């Protein structure tokens, strides 16, 4: 297992970028997936409901 500095750098420079792109696409798909719209709408309004007691 001879990991030298160059290997790490090459790995960081290549896979780091793929990781970033994959993650960005994943997040965008999740955020804009049509069936998620309802739950997001519910979530954003939920905090404005009555919140005096647990379980309300």
């Amino acid at each position, binding site marked *: 297992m001879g990991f030298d*500095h160059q290997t*790490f750098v090459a790995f960081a420079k290549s*896979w*780091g970028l793929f*990781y970033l792109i994959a993650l960005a696409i994943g997040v965008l*798909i*999740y955020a804009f*997936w049509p069936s*998620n719209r309802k739950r997001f709408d519910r979530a954003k309004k939920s905090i404005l409901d009555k919140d005096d007691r647990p379980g309300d």
Partner: protein
Amino acid sequence: MPNFHRKLERSAIGFVLAIIGVSAIGGFVEIAPLFTIQETVEKAPDMRVYTPLETAGRNIYIREGCYACHSQMIRTLRDEVERYGPYSLAVESQYDKPMLWGSKRTGPDLARLGGKYSDAWHVAHLVNPRAVVPQSVMPKYGWLMRNELSTADLSLHLAAQRRLGVPYTEAQVANASADAYGQASPDSSYAGGVGERYGAETNVRAFDGEPGRLTEMDALVAYLQVLGRLTDAAHRQTAAKGK
């Protein structure tokens, strides 16, 4: 994908793992090369470690928060090199635990301070900066002159660093307290060992101007006088580029 994420959200643990994954893996990809970064550091065979007295001085520098106003990192910019000296190399701080590069210059950079002023200037400056530089806003550090330096645990300091990879020899660790005393007491019998263990060019002087006492001032001035002088690598590099 949405189903996957929905499940992820439903279980709080899954969500935790996602956050750790995204942040830590992302961070790790960048950080990983830094665990081998010592391989990229220039070699400087002539470089020596800090003496016990300088180590004690460095710890006083840390204790008083000097790093908050003084950097020890000359950047590769023309004006900095002309103002302070050859730009700093990674190798110069290879034994620095922690590094003291700093991030603010309320006062000037100190990376090449060693040998620039006399011991007496440093002592006068630290006791009352405005006596030497009237416009200075540096605090007075009068207590450094009053406080005896505690040398009892210096062996422990060196031993801890040795375990963390700083190449102190066993003799250096064992004689730490004596060497600290000897470096500031040139006329004592302890002085000779300092040169033996740390090299003939090591400063052995009564740094605070009072040979009889070992004060915190001795330690701090000894440290300030060795800044940028543990190796010639930076000067050599600049000279080579000049040709």
